[in-house]
C-alpha cells in the first residue's frame, strides 16, 4: 500500500497527487512512468512520474480523471492509500546538448512534459509552448516558466495567451532563423503530436514524442502497448515511451487506443455522479 500525502486539483478534472514511494523516487529519471492500481479488482494504468523528492521519498503524479479508473484514483484523498504503485518503468528521456529546444505540451501532456523540461533545461535553451482548451486548463505555468527561456501559452478560445494551437507558435519559431529549434519534444494527444511531427519532418528537425498506448503490466511481458516505429513493432513500456516522432505510426496508435472505447463508456456511465460512490471519499 502506498500513502497519498496530498491531492490537489490543478485544473478541471486534473489532479496532482503526491505519493510516498521512496524506492521509486530514488530510482526514477525524467520520462519514466509508474503503473498504478487503485484497489483490488481495479485495472492497472500507466501514469507519468511528474516529479520526485528523494529526501522526502515521494513522487508526484498528474492525473486526468478521464474514465472510471482515473476517477477512482483521484478520489483517494490525502491520508488515503493506493493499493499498488510499480516503477519506475520505461526508458528515461534521452538527454543531449541540442542547443535550442522547443518543448510542446497539450492538455495533461503539459504535466508529462514538465519532468522533460526540467531535465533538458540543464544544458539546453528551452522554449516551452503549452496549450489548453481554455484558461483553466493551462497548468504548471509558473513551474515551466522558471525552467524556460521563453514560455508561450495558447488556448483554443483565446481566454489565455494566444488564441489557437501550439502548432501555430511552433510554425512561427520555425520560420524565424533566430528562434528555429534544434530539437522538438512534444507530449499530448495523438493528433497534436502527429501535427508537430509533420511540421518538423520536411525541415529534418529531430522530434521526440511520448506515446500513451494501452498498457497492463508495463514490463514488456504482454505487448498490449505495441506501436509501429519505422515499420518495426516496439513495446512502448520497455522500448519507450519516447520515440522518434518522424517514425511513429500515429494512426495505428489512435486506432489501438479505441479498442475498449465501448467498455470505457459503459464503465463511465456506471460511474455517473448520481450512481457513483467512487471519488467522494
Amino acid at each position, binding site marked *: 500500500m502506498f500513502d497519498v500525502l496530498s491531492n490537489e486539483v490543478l485544473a478541471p478534472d486534473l489532479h496532482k497527487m503526491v505519493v510516498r514511494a521512496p524506492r521509486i523516487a530514488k530510482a526514477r529519471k525524467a520520462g519514466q512512468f509508474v503503473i498504478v492500481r487503485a484497489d483490488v479488482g481495479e*485495472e492497472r494504468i500507466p501514469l507519468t512520474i511528474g516529479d520526485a523528492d528523494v529526501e522526502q521519498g515521494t513522487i508526484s503524479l498528474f492525473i486526468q480523471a478521464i474514465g472510471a479508473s482515473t476517477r477512482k484514483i483521484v478520489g483517494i484523498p490525502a491520508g488515503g492509500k493506493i493499493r499498488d504503485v*510499480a516503477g519506475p518503468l520505461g526508458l528515461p528521456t534521452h538527454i543531449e546538448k541540442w542547443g535550442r529546444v522547443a518543448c510542446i505540451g497539450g492538455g495533461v501532456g503539459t504535466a508529462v512534459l514538465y519532468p522533460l523540461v526540467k531535465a533538458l533545461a540543464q544544458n539546453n535553451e528551452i522554449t516551452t509552448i503549452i496549450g489548453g482548451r481554455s484558461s483553466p486548463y493551462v497548468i504548471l505555468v509558473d513551474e515551466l516558466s522558471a525552467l524556460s527561456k521563453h514560455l508561450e501559452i495558447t488556448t483554443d478560445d483565446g481566454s489565455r495567451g494566444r488564441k489557437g494551437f501550439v502548432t501555430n507558435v511552433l510554425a512561427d519559431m520555425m520560420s524565424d532563423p533566430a528562434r528555429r529549434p534544434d530539437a522538438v519534444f512534444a507530449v499530448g494527444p495523438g493528433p497534436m503530436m502527429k501535427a508537430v511531427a509533420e511540421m518538423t519532418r520536411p525541415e529534418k528537425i529531430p522530434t521526440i514524442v511520448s506515446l500513451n498506448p494501452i498498457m497492463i503490466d508495463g514490463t514488456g*511481458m*504482454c505487448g498490449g502497448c505495441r506501436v509501429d516505429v519505422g515499420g518495426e*513493432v516496439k513495446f512502448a513500456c520497455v522500448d519507450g515511451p519516447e520515440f522518434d516522432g518522424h517514425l511513429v505510426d500515429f494512426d495505428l496508435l489512435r486506432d489501438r487506443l479505441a479498442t475498449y472505447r465501448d467498455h470505457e463508456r459503459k464503465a463511465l456511465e456506471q460511474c455517473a455522479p448520481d450512481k457513483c460512490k467512487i471519488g467522494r471519499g
Partner: protein
Amino acid sequence: MSDTKTVATMSMKERMAIERVKMPEADGTVRSRNFQEVNLGLNEAAAILEAQRCLNCKKRNCVVGCPVGVSIPEFISALSQGKLAEAAKILKKDTSLPAVCGRVCPQEKQCEAECVRGVKSLPVAIGYLERFVADWANQHIDQVREKVSVTPTGKTVAVVGCGPAGITAAGELARKGHKVTIFEALHDTGGVLRYGIPEFRLPKTIIDQEVAGLKDLGVTIELNVIIGKTLTLKQLREEFDAVFIANGAGLPMMLNIPGENLKGVYSANEFLTRVNLMGAGQLADCSTPIVQGKRVAVIGAGNTAMDCVRTARRLGAERSMIVYRRTEAEMPARVEEIHHAKDEGVEFVFLTAPLAILGDKDNWCTALKCQKMELGEPDASGRRKPIAIEGAIEDLQADVVINALGTRANPLLSQTAPELQLNKWGNVVSDEKTAATNLAGVFAGGDIVRGGATVILAMGDGKVAAAGIHEYLSTK
C-alpha cells in the same frame, strides 16, 4: 473405510489387481461456460486404494523422474496406511508447491513415466495422489504446519521473481535458516501460476495457500518491485549475501505477419493476464476489459495455446479454435488438456499456417488468412515437416486471434546489469549443477536460463539453486 483392507493385510497379488483410479471431472458442456476447476480431485477412499497400487520399489525410479526429487514411495506409503498428516509432512520436505505440481506437472513424461507398474499396466497416479495429500494438508493446516526450528544462519538471500523457481528456492533456503526476501514485479504472487495458468486448471486459492506456507517459514515477499528498474542487481548484491534470479521468460514472440496490430489480436500473455491476473470477463466487479470474440482462433499447439482456447470458450466464444500447422500427433500440449479441450467443444484446425490477419474498415480483426499444409518427410528432430500445398489458401473467420507461439527472456534486469553473462538469446548463463552465474554470489534458474519451459523444470532449478546458494553461503 471399514471394508477397505489395509495395505499391511493385502497380498501382492491383491495389490497388483487394483486398477488405476480415474480422475472425476466436471461435465464438459457445463464446465465449458464456467471457470471452476475441471478435475475434481480424488476422495480419501479412492486415494488410499490408489496408493495401495504402489509397490514401494527399492530402486525408486519415480523419484529420479521427478525434477525436485519428491520422496514419492515414502509419501504414498504413509497415504496407503491412511496416515495423511505424515504423508503431507513428507511431501512438504521436498516441495513448496505440491498442490500446484499435482495439478500442472506432465507426470506422464516424468515420475509416472518411470513407474514400474506402468510396464505391464498403468503407472501409479502419483500426480493425483500428490494433489490429494496437498489439498488435504491445505484444509488441515493445523495438523501439518511446520514447526520452524531451524537455526538462523544470519545470511540473507534476495530472490528475484515469485514464480515457481523463486518460490521453490525461497522455501528451501528458509528451511536451511537463511533470511529470504522475494521481489516480485507484479501486484500478486505466483508468476505464471497466477497470470498464465487459468482458474479451471489451477484455482488461485491454491497459490495463496502455498505462498502462505512460505510466509510461515519466515520468507518476506515484496510486491511491485521490478529488479532492473525499482532496484538494480548491483543494489541487491550490496544488500544481500546472495541473489537468485528467477524472473522468467515473459516477453512474447510476435507473429510478424501482416495485420498483427489489428484490434482483437492478442499475445497469449496479454489475453491470459487480462483474464487470470486481472479477472477480465471472469469476475463481475473487475474493471479490466477484454475483447470477447464470437469466433476465436488461437495460433499454436502447446499448453499455453490450450489454456487460451479453453479460456476463450468460457468467455462465450461460439467457435474456439486451435490453428496448428502440423497434426494432433505432433501437438506439444499435454494429452489430458487436449482431451479436456475436445470435451469442451474446442475445434482443431490442423495442417494450417497463418499468413496474415485480415480486418474491416475500422481495423477490427475479421479473419485469419491461412495456408493449408501437408506433412512431408521427418526432419532432423524426427517430426514430419509441414509443407505448403500450393494454391491452397483459405480464410478462417475470427474476430479474436491469439498468438501462443512462445516467449523469450525479458531484458529488464539484464539491461541494467551488463556485467551479467547472457547467451545469444538473452538468457542468463548459469552452471547446471550449482546455478551459479559469472558473478560471485549471483545464481539464476527457471525460464530466464532455459527460455520458456515448464513449471516443474523451473522448480527443479529452484531446488538446484538453493543447494548451490547454501553451499556458497556455508563457505563464505
